[in-house]
């Protein structure tokens, strides 16, 4: 099967090559990829970004949306720094795109590696990932107020917050909760969201701020309980998940007196030096991807915020978010010295 794919790839390459020689190119030809597209994931296999990238790869393959194959490559080293530096070093290579998560900002800020999102060419925001405050379903805490009161009654640091990675989004949210309520957590970093969810089910940590897709299976199994969602409005997904509850029945943290909203970028960038035609090719490609039922299902399963942005609007949003991360991380003392 592998050889078949390769053959198709070579066939496609040959076809593009022949077409390039035989047909005179019109002056303003629409750009098309002529080699396999490398889709870099700056995170490990099996995580949220990886799942999204591989779903996109599957959609692109199934509906024949690109002339050349799309290949997903994980470059997770150094909290994703490896992937970002790889794309940064691929100037004028239009066959390389990267999916980002919050480590687009947090990794360079926390480690001081020579990288900034401005080194890349922004393509499109695909979606925003939500964060939810979860506790174990066996605990008596039914609301944020119960939970905060319990933490305040215990000695500082008694309550453990589990999260993915260190000085990344989960810890930033934890510090922001501490700032907003005056409680003190002991933050324990783990490698992946699934592991964090299981630590909560096993009562090894007291709460988590897992993304919906990381914890939904445990919620359906009656093992964990959502307290609030870190968005400024309740989620629109009304399909029942467990006991007449849906994503839409989770209150916002702001309404519960926890004055904080945080969303994580799931967006696409490409290598530096890309022309507007090349950017436009990928924008159109992702518009087509967003129309497929597979994509809509992924969005509903993970209760994603389906904002879509391109061009200047997207760049401005990223710039604003970078400043916000810089402020949050500075307050928390997470910036590299």
């Amino acid at each position, binding site marked *: *099967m*592998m050889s078949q*794919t390769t053959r198709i790839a070579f066939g496609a390459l040959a076809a593009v090559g022949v077409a390039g020689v035989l047909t005179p190119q019109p002056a303003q030809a629409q750009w098309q990829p002529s080699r396999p597209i490398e889709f870099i994931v700056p995170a*490990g*296999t*099996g995580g949220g970004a*990886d*799942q999204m990238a*591989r*779903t996109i790869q*599957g959609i692109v*393959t*199934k509906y024949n949306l690109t002339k050349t194959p799309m290949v*997903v*490559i994980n*470059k*997770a*080293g*150094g909290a994703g*720094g*490896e992937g970002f*530096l*790889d794309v940064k070093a691929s100037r004028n290579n239009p066959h390389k795109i990267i999916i980002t998560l919050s480590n687009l900002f947090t990794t360079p800020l*926390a*480690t*001081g*590696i*020579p990288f900034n999102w401005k080194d890349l060419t922004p393509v499109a925001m695909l979606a925003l990932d939500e964060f939810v405050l979860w506790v174990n379903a066996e605990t008596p805490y039914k609301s944020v107020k119960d939970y905060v009161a319990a933490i305040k009654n215990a000695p500082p*640091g008694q309550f*453990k917050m589990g999260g993915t*990675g*260190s*000085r990344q989004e989960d*810890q930033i949210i934890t510090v922001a909760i501490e700032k907003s309520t005056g409680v003190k957590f*002991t*933050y*324990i*970093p*783990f*490698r992946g969201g*699934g*592991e964090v*969810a*299981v*630590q909560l*089910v*096993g009562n*090894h*940590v007291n709460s988590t701020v897992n993304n919906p897709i990381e914890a*939904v*299976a*445990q919620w*359906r*199994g*009656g093992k964990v309980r959502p307290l609030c969602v870190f968005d400024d409005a309740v989620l629109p997904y009304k399909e029942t998940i467990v006991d007449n509850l849906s994503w839409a029945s989770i209150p916002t943290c702001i309404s519960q007196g926890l004055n904080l909203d945080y969303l994580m970028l799931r967006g696409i960038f490409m290598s530096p030096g890309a022309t507007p035609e090349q950017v436009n090719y990928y924008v159109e490609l992702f518009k087509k991807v967003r129309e497929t039922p*597979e994509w809509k299902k*992924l969005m509903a*399963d993970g209760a994603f915020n389906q904002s879509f942005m391109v061009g200047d609007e997207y760049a401005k949003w990223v710039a604003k978010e970078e400043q916000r991360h810089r402020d949050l991380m500075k307050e928390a003392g*997470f910036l*590299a010295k």
Partner: protein
Amino acid sequence: MEEIANLMQGFATVLEPFNIGVMIIGILLGVIIGVLPGLGGANGVAILLPLTFSMSPTSAIIMLSCIYWGALFGGAITSVLFNIPGEPWSVATTFDGHPMAQNGRAGEALTAAFTSSFVGALFAVVMITLVAPLVARFALQFGAAEKFGVYFLAFCSFVGLSKEPPAKTVVAMMIGFALAAVGLDQMTGQLRLTFGSTELLAGFDFLIAVIGLFGIGEILLTMEEGLQFKGKSATINPRVVLQTWMELPRYWATSIRSCIIGCWMGITPAGATPASFMSYGIAKRMSPRGKNFGKGEIEGVVAPETAAHAAGTSALLPMLSLGVPGSPTAAVLLGGLLIWGLQPGPLLFVEQKEFVWGLIASMYLGNIVGLLIVLTCVPLLAAMLRIPFPVIAPIILVLCAIGAYTVHNNPFDVVMMMVFGVLGYVLKKCDYPLAPLVLALVLGDKAEEAFRQALLGSQGSLTVFWSNGLVGSIMLLGLIALFWPIIQNGMARLRPRPAV
């Protein structure tokens, strides 16, 4: 006996002609992936994942899990023949498998490796069939302290095993720990020991180190010794499989012990690599022929292979029932499940009966088909050792380089592989054991993480490692393993000597 009825239904699904075809293709691809060093099961499954999107979820998971079985089988081949572990969990197989090949017993070593793999997998599948829900609850008991206990046990059962002086073992292990510490510190999110170099950002990948230390190091050694494989080349004997099978039942105790270690490591989830090391170490301690380990003892192949395959198989259980992958390959499969619209977790066994039991049935059949396929290849594989060294060495070198490159698609890794090759050669010439280095490199950062997570949770108190019965007994087992030679000595002295 609802499980049995469900399982029979599962067999009916798997025995559809299309699914059987998918199964055979999967095994073959998996063996190829396992043979190529670097291109591990996780990468292989990830590359082939998109091909399965057009299939039904059951066919797709059968194909992918068969690739996984194939990779588990295939990893042993190059370990035995060329001392190059195709997969991390085959490192321990090289310790005795390769000396066997050098003594002209490659066919026996391969047969033992494949058969033990099969036994390990079968044990794990039977366990999954019968006690899945119970086992899932057991896995939940494992927090950071318990995980550290498991790694501690793995290190302790391995320390003091080598014939080299203990000081050299400690030095090798410390080099391993130092190498494992390079890159991002998971606990603080900061870089350490990278000296400002962006190339070292990702740290030293275990696979690249192993390909270099073992593969390239071995080639350098052979070159020095006059461009020939040591020992006599194997004669092609089609009956070698049957002959080895006659011998294997003698090692039943090692097999059962390794099965249990493997299942435990797969579920907790620590993974197949520590399982294979731990099982080899304990087999060496317990076996009456323990002092021959490392010179080509068939039991030294049975122990790690049984444990690795049992762990690899049972690693799928926490993935299905908890949504936590027990191995990198299981992590990719988990991604696949989500893409096919299946939600792994406590309810998967209830809501997706056909899928789950189809998968379990495919584990039984996939392993049988896999065993048949690889066993028929044994004489053929053993014959590869008859190819003259000047012909095969460049091929191995190229395969190693490709393997090192595929791990991260990074040319720098090929350079690193050569550096590790020279390091492996120098260490071998100076009689430093490589195994402790490799063990420390692969488990060092995980053990460190678990240790620091546990201490964060206990606010710095070391008593957390004795805070409950589970972690306490694991730590105690570790200490017993560590001081076993002293305990053995003491017991021998206490025993009244027979009057002369």
